[in-house]
């Protein structure tokens, strides 16, 4: 059944708001993974989860209007992806880049 344009736009707006309402949860997931990795850099499971999370954020957030968030998530996703594909953990060399990208991503949640 088709809605009127106005109803449709209202519904899209509602979806955007509902997506936004769930962003704090995603931020918490991000922080908890960050904590796991801070405690143990070689926690590969945490890195894999972080990859999944950034992949989802990158692919969906811009469809709900969060362009900046999507871009930053994409950068971190692209950085982690080769590690995950090669089953490599973070190391001291990659840690700095990871932290910088993660911090940019965290900041973009409030933009």
């Amino acid at each position, binding site marked *: 059944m088709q809605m009127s344009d106005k109803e449709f736009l209202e519904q899209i707006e509602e*979806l955007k708001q509902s997506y936004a309402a769930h962003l704090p949860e995603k931020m918490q997931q991000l922080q908890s993974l960050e904590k796991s990795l801070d405690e143990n850099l070689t926690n590969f499971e945490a890195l894999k989860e972080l990859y999944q999370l950034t*992949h989802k954020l990158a692919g969906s957030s811009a*469809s709900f209007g969060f362009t900046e968030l*999507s871009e930053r998530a*994409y950068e971190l996703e692209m950085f982690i992806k080769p590690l995950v594909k090669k089953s490599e953990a973070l190391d001291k060399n990659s840690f700095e880049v990871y932290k910088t990208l993660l911090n940019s991503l965290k900041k973009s949640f409030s933009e």
Partner: protein
Amino acid sequence: MPTLQKIMYVEDEPDIQTIASIALENIGGFSVKTCNCGADALEEAPEFAPDLILLDVMMPDMDGPTTLLEIRKIDSLVSTPVVFITAKAQLHEIAQYKSQPGVLDVITKPFDPITLSDTIRNIWENYHANV
């Protein structure tokens, strides 16, 4: 040109499923059936008989390319047109699947829900103009 009316969208992310199906139904005027995974798609596709299948590439359990292989084993879906939907990070990985028969194109995520229907209609028209 065949009419594009029924679209099946196979996507594991509920947020994207919802916004895409609302947009496709209301802007595009399509009938949309969403499936959460490849296995659901294999079960529901024969009865729904989609004109077009939108297939997410990266899904747990059965990914998009594997789902397509299984779909092609079903007689009634052997030539149903498919459009892959993939994150831009996976775009180069899908290149090899683009040349498979019946794969019309690849749409990258994130997409704008407002223009999604036009994108799909253009893909459909271009494909049928060239066959």
